[in-house]
């Protein structure tokens, strides 16, 4: 397991609180604004950073994140530049875990060996590859793990007791529980059901469990943080990026501060959850 992810969850456990994970799409709406957004996250109380690798056809994501992906691509974002973004983030922050999330095709096109090596060198700690189920582990999960990258697996409400061991096998870093059967940014999760699912997963693994999909407000984040080791927020932030663009699609002044302000509120919600 990556030292940064392990140490971060150990520290959260020691503090007796859940963590906040935020998702932003690399290069959305443009490379420089994106870097400023991501650099500011730890100062706003984010515990782990999830960065989306843009893809033209993000099938498991909702309209908000797809739009963010397409804005980033239109702004010239490429996979090599995503890795460069992480490298630049690492120049100023050596502690916050960075997880890259995305779909397999851009990685496949770059070449998995080259991608894995570049990701390790850039300071990436873990990967979430949405369209690589355990059935395809030999393809990419095993070489990535061998190079020291955590392979964070998604578990969902459709992952039953029979399937859970398959999902947990080769998983590392933490388990990302998808709280709804649906796409990102759709329905809100029901906290009690999430609690039950988290307990079920934790009875089968020592890995921390983060919960995401559908969490938009500090109150929702707090409700999840009572049950999970971390709450993940993505679409709400990507939506906020979208609503702070001008007619030409360029970042309006204040975009970064507006997004950071919501992140601070979310962090406060998560921190106060178990008080």
């Amino acid at each position, binding site marked *: 397991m990556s030292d940064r992810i392990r140490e971060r969850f150990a520290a959260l456990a020691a503090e007796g609180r859940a963590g906040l994970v935020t998702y932003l799409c690399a290069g959305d709406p443009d490379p420089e604004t994106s870097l400023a957004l991501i650099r500011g996250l730890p100062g706003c109380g984010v515990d782990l950073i999830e960065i989306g690798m843009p*893809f033209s056809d993000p099938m*498991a994501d909702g309209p908000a994140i797809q739009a963010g992906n397409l804005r980033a691509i239109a702004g010239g974002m490429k996979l090599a530049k995503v890795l460069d973004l992480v490298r630049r983030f690492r120049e100023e922050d050596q502690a916050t875990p960075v997880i890259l999330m995305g779909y397999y095709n851009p990685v*496949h096109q770059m070449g998995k060996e080259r991608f894995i090596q570049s990701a390790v060198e850039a300071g990436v700690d873990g990967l979430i590859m949405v369209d690589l189920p355990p059935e*395809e582990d030999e393809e990419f999960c095993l070489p990535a793990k061998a190079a020291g990258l955590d392979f964070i697996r998604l578990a*969902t409400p*459709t992952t*039953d007791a029979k399937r859970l061991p398959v999902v947990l096998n080769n998983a590392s870093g933490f388990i990302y529980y*998808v709280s709804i059967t649906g796409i990102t940014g759709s329905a809100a999760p029901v906290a009690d059901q999430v609690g039950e699912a988290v307990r079920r997963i934790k009875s089968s693994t020592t890995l921390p469990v983060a919960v995401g999909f559908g969490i938009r407000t500090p109150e929702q984040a707090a409700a999840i943080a009572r049950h999970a080791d971390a709450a993940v927020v993505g679409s709400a932030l990507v939506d906020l990026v979208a609503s702070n663009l001008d007619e030409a699609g360029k970042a309006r002044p204040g975009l970064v501060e507006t997004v950071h302000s919501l992140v601070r509120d979310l962090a406060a919600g998560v921190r106060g959850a178990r008080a």
Partner: protein
Amino acid sequence: MSQRNSLRNMPDENGHYGIFGGRFVAETLMPLILELESAYEAAKKDEGFWKELDGWFKDYVGRPSPLYFAERLTEHFGGAKIYFKREELNHTGSHKINNTVAQVLLAKRMGKTRIIAETGAGQHGVATATVASRLGLPCIVYMGAKDIERQQPNVFRMRLLGAEVRPVTSGSHTLKDAMNEALRDWVSNVHDTFYVIGSVAGPHPYPAMVRDFQSVIGRETKQQILEKEGRLPDVLIAAVGGGSNAMGLFHPFLDDDVRLIAVEAAGDGIETGRHAAAMAAGTPGVLHGSRSYLLQDEDGQVVEPHSISAGLDYPGVGPEHSWLKEQGRLEIAPATDAETLEAFQLCGRIEGILPALECAHALAHIAKIAPTMDKDQVIVLNLSGRGDKDIFTVAEHLGVKL
């Protein structure tokens, strides 16, 4: 050829055809994909399922479809004998109905109560809406907003059949985006929904399952050509977008000494970059649940294809096609929009048949090879769909106002 060395034994147990195929989907869908796979494996071994399907094929679809000797076209080109496998005579006007009948019957067996599909030109959507209507299941068809504009008659047909056509305005508003939306719907409604995929694409088991359902085309062709000519054809030819009509024709012949030619949409010409020729000009990539040849840029972003035919306008191709191409078993040929328009008109003028623009691509390639072949040689074209749906597109390209 021994069973062990047969080209017909693919995929392996994980749905791989060499490096192609597989199951590249989100975890939410995996239990569903595995459930579908076991339901299909059980149905495959159940004689009752095939008997029921045969009944539907005979009395509802209108099978077997004829194998027709295109005498005037043969005379026109002055070379090989040209036969059409008349899939356009099926109920709803294309080969798509073979697969949708079978998949919706499977959905019923699985206790699913809601049918979803995606469609490009509308043929698969119409076929799915038809069978869902016949079996009393609600049906939602995702269709790119651009395709809805250029395929109005099929959109109206689907609505008359009781289906809900949902316009897709995400991404580039075409077939690949409709497929993304259908996958999103499926993820959101996993408990009661069956996703009827219309081509030999998508995650395992779809490519193998759709191929098996469409192989009735090739099996009939084999029997019919033996009756008519006393021997197998020299060439089988079919247009390839996703590739289900081609795979259905080719598969029963994979181990035979027959040339197999897959014709891809070359659009304005492959060199212009405006085409849909995934095998001729794409590279291996992962989209919509499997690895196959894909039109993509150097960063792995999917490139929007172009073809005069909305049915071929897909950036990928079925994984088995990709594998057969790499095995050297499949010949890949291009046909441009212009060549296709010419073939479309020629067929109407001298055979009294308006072929779908999809198959007019294959006919355009026949125009290139038939004259070079001997008169005793035989070509079979899969005439997979009717051209009625395409008259508006053709009129527009010919500058005719309807």
